């Protein structure tokens, strides 16, 4: 879905950031729905979303030309400075591909070397081409496209062939958890963008927390153990998150 949002575009910092969408003007759907920005072009933002429940079902009913009440840009960004002496491996799974795709496109534009791994259940969930020669690897659980299995299969392969790899991931909690365990084991650094239920996206409800491994107070979070994904996230160092 594409939308014209000049004000947000102006303040945009980069991949990782998201917008918070009021999908229904009535209280039929009380809370906004957060969606990562999947791309930005002039005044236009792109989001990619999967229809899961009421909110996203409502979102698909929006027509070209409709107004949408959105708040953003929200959150921090993938830290690209850290890529300097590293070879980034971008991993996106399920509804977490949006920020990864944006990052991929940004890096492609800047001709930065990187690998891209996108996982999904089945062929129909994909919209890229499986091109291992161009370092784009698609996986499907059912083997209908690309490599059969999860993103882990590809990751395990490519990670050994690269010098100083660094992982950038976004996707379902289960996927991130497996990646985290794997990376900590082999001592490879990484960043990941998290998701959670959100009421405000502004730091005022304290609803969107994640537990951190090292106690340390973030800028916007009230405590040291829990961090606000909407303001101090969604991007965290992979080792810092306790699932």
């Amino acid at each position, binding site marked *: 879905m594409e939308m014209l949002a000049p004000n947000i575009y102006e303040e945009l910092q980069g991949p990782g950031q998201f917008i918070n969408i009021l999908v229904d003007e009535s209280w039929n759907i009380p809370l906004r729905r957060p969606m990562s920005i999947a791309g930005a072009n002039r005044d236009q933002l792109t989001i990619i979303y999967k229809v899961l429940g009421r909110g996203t079902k409502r979102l698909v009913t929006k027509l070209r030309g409709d107004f949408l009440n959105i708040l953003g840009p929200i959150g921090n960004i993938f830290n690209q400075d850290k890529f300097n002496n590293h070879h980034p491996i971008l991993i996106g799974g399920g509804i977490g591909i949006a920020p990864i795709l944006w990052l991929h496109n940004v890096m492609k534009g800047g001709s930065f070397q990187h690998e891209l791994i996108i996982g999904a259940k089945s062929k129909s969930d994909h919209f890229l081409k499986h091109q291992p020669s161009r370092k784009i690897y698609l996986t499907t659980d059912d083997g209908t496209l690309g490599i059969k299995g999860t993103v882990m299969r590809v990751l395990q392969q490519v990670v050994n062939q690269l010098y100083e790899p660094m992982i950038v991931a976004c996707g379902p909690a289960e996927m991130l958890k497996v990646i985290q365990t794997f990376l900590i084991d082999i001592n490879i650094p990484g960043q990941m963008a998290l998701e959670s239920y959100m009421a405000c996206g502004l730091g005022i409800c304290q609803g969107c927390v994640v537990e951190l491994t090292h106690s340390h107070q973030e800028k916007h979070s009230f405590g040291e153990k829990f961090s606000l994904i909407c*303001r101090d996230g969604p991007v965290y160092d992979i080792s810092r998150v306790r699932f």
Partner: protein
Amino acid sequence: MANLKVSIGGVEFNNPVFVASGTFGYGNDVSELVDVNQLGAIITKSITFHPREGNPPPRIIETPSGMLNSIGLANIGVDQFIKEMIPYYASLETKVIVNIAGSSMEEYLNVLEKVEKVGENIYGYEINVSCPNVEKGGMEFGVNSLMTRNLTELLRKRTEKLLIVKLSPNVTDITDIAKGAKEGGADAISAINTVIGMSIDISSRKSNLATKFGGLSGPAIKPIGIANVHKLSSAIQIPVIGIGGITSAEDVVEYLLAGATAVQIGTANFRDPGIGVKIIAEVDAYCDSNGYYDMSELTGALVNDS
């Protein structure tokens, strides 16, 4: 232009539209988005003596016309609050009321005394009595009239500022608790806090909140808020501040008619943090087009013909 000013316990507020505790942070998070100086008052997130991490996630879930939360009073603690927020509040024109929570009488008192010493632009305290009282084995202060009275009395002795007691609707007789607060010296009552609720994710078979139970808020509870405010304003002589499901100027007027002197907007801030400011303008317009010149013409002006 109607006169939107309202007075509670001798303190005058520019208008009757406040933001509710825990739904606006400390005010600073959204001050770039919203002209917070237009609000009648800002009620801070509940402050406890020590910082509180709050409950594990998930902490929020949507429900029909509302939401459940179990934030668990996550807050930065009174010391950091004083260090970081008091200077910010000194720069505001809007009056600030500090919401205090605690699990013992002493904790409430210690927080109040610390703020009392430094509090510039702090016009009073809202006492959140919906916290489990550790001394009485976890029973909430807010479900017992005598406990509420004693707590209020203790705090009253230490401050001349506005003392507001915020009541929970999860009791058999809210007016009984309010009488305790009034006898203890409260200047006003605010009501309602959230209603106890729960919801379950049937596919994982887990509660949608890590704590199982949470607090229900939003339009779903507006009729409960209106009923409690009307009961309270009929039963006690101190001002009542109405809370629960307010999303529009019409809702504000409804609460005033039910007997509220002012109102607080909660959950609606999460959809639009600027809603309070918008509503103030709409209340003004409503008064103009309906011939009300002063908020006092609305408060309690319910027509009883039955």
